[in-house]
């Protein structure tokens, strides 16, 4: 009885799926879906290597400091970093006084209240604060950016397929649209962006846009894009170095334990056929 009912139910699902398939094939053969512009022109992130790649990957702190400088001087005007605190910058190699100075001189102040009147006010940031948002709210952000919303960058390197390489590819990927492709007004062609038209104007426009300190490589556009992408990876995954180190020791421990377990297994089963 179960088998007869099962057979009928099976025929039902198989039949309807086959019916769907038939119509799908007819539609596909009769009118093959045209490739959209996104399909033709979209480019995957470039293959870029970073110091933090692989199980032994570590931060290049000098690079993170340069990347932070690019963020501060180029990105921070529009993009927040609200999950990162100023105190976290000590992990980039800044000492306590430097962190305090960075927080104190941050161009955007932290929302607060006036201690005398209780009215909304702002104050200077301290190391314990997270990076303040550049706009008070979404409406203000859109109003200032031609109705586009600049995303917060705290997690951007983990929130896009391709990670840091996506960010770097996007930053360096602006070029003239191919012939016949119309870019809507106010948008910019970038084949690494999902729908090819990005509202953000090319942020890294010229070599030397940021002045790196002595002992650093020249601030070419490629170098700045590379550095800020690494910095954003740090912002998204500040525990990466600790994770890699803990992982290696954990694996050493587990492999040792597993070898012991295997030997115990062989010992217990010695002489037992199975």
């Amino acid at each position, binding site marked *: 009885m*179960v*088998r007869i009912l*099962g*057979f009928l*139910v*099976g*025929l039902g*699902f*198989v039949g*309807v*799926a*086959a*019916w*769907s*398939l038939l*119509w*799908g*094939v007819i*539609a*596909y053969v009769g009118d093959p*879906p045209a490739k959209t512009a996104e399909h033709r022109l979209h480019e995957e992130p470039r293959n870029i290597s970073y110091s933090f790649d692989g*199980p032994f990957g570590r931060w290049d702190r000098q690079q993170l400091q340069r990347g932070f400088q690019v963020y501060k001087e180029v990105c921070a005007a529009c993009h927040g970093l609200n*999950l990162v605190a100023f105190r*976290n910058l000590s992990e980039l190699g800044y000492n306590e006084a430097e962190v305090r100075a960075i927080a104190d001189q941050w161009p955007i102040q932290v929302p607060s209240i006036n201690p005398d009147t209780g009215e909304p006010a702002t104050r200077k940031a301290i190391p314990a604060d997270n990076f303040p948002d550049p706009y008070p709210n979404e409406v203000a952000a859109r109003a200032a950016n031609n109705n586009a919303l600049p*995303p917060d960058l*705290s*997690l951007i390197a*983990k*929130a*896009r*397929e391709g*990670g840091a390489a996506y960010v770097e590819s996007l930053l360096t990927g602006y070029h003239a649209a191919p012939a016949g492709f119309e870019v809507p007004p106010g948008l910019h062609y970038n084949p690494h962006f*999902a729908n090819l038209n990005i509202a953000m104007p090319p942020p890294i426009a010229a070599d030397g846009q940021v002045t790196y300190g002595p002992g650093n490589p020249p601030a070419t556009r490629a170098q700045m894009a590379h550095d800020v992408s690494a910095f954003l990876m740090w912002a*998204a995954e*500040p*525990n990466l170095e*600790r*994770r*890699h180190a*803990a*992982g*290696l020791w*954990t*694996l050493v421990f*587990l*492999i040792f*334990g*597993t070898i012991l*377990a*295997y030997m*115990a*297994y062989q*010992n*217990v*089963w*010695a*002489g*037992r*056929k*199975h």
Partner: protein
Amino acid sequence: MSFPWAEEYRPKNAFMRYLDDRLPLPRLVYNSVGGGYPVPRNLNYMWNFGVLAGLALVIQIVTGIVLAMHYNSNAETAFTSVEHIMRNVNQGWFLRYAHANGASFFFIVTYLHIFRGLYYGSYKAPREMVWMLGLVIFLLMMATAFMGYVLPWGQMSFWAAKVITGLFGAIPLVGEPIQNWLLGGYAPDQPTLTRFFSLHYLLPFVIAGVIILHIWALHIPGSSNPTGVDVKSPQDTLPFHPYYTAKDGFGAGLGMILLAILIFFLPNYLGDPVNYVPADPLSTPSHITPEWYFWPYYAILRAFTVDFILPAKLWGVLAMFASILLLFFLPWLDKGPVRSGRYRPKFRIFFWILMLDIAVLGWLGGLPAEEPYVMASQAATIYYFAHFLIILPILSAVERTLPLPLSISESVLGGEEAEAPPTDLSGTAPAQA
């Protein structure tokens, strides 16, 4: 339970004797996973995954309880509370990555456990109840995993909640009220998040309870084995402890190595990057997908694209649920008396086609619903249902199986002289070869 030659629990000291007389808990453990449970001696590594699944549940409960101490089930702050765990809680990143990848690990070992049951006919009499309780565990796992995925309240969390509860909306008449009842509103919002958190905390303990029933039911006939031949004599078995505890220890070591590689070196590999974007009800992601372990069902759901008496969406929902529910009837769909795929040459071919089919469905489920992927998933869906509901019942009636070994010990020892049964069933003495 199980076999007459099962070693009886003998308390080793006065305290255990005292305890055993009043609360025979040590006896229960001894008879369940100790020296008192005789297990076929010929189990291969595919029999390691039950214990590994139990271990995965323990990992999920332990990491989950600690995560719940720091997580905030408020729609405004849930996302930032997860990032707070990642950034500010001591070893919080480890807890969260262990929990997220632990879920994947749980599904990996559970799928292998289920596939082993399919190949070796573990669902057949007298183990139907073991099989069905296992499926109940699997369904509970899916519900728990789905609700857990919603908790970080990222974009994919939100839209997964919307799409999955929307499936119930496809049911005629009562669909929409059911959907609203599940969500606690018309769209995922605060009530959804709070109830999912509550249920996500509850269900693992329900799973633990059903696991006890699963093991209880298993211990009536005892474990199956790669030959599928019933245990006939003490020669066929070895006590669970120390033989299989030792083997499971090795298996657990390998499992933990895999999990550690995921946690420490590929923590986001199996996840969707879009879930690192906070939930936004006004912006639909271009490509909504569930986590990888749901991809085969998602492909089946999307394979039904044409209305036929019922709306296409309803067909998809029915097929998706049927794809799992039909497994409850498997013991009666496949009536062949031979359990193990080893002795069923035709079955074996179809089994491997099914494995390939499920892999293809899984691959397609993660891709966008575009042609030619939809056509491929339709073809794969056809095979999935045909395999269980049409091929298997016919095959089990007409197939010619290979001769079975007379007993487990015969298959193990071949033509050699029989090995004496273990004299000391507590198993610490070396074998008398």
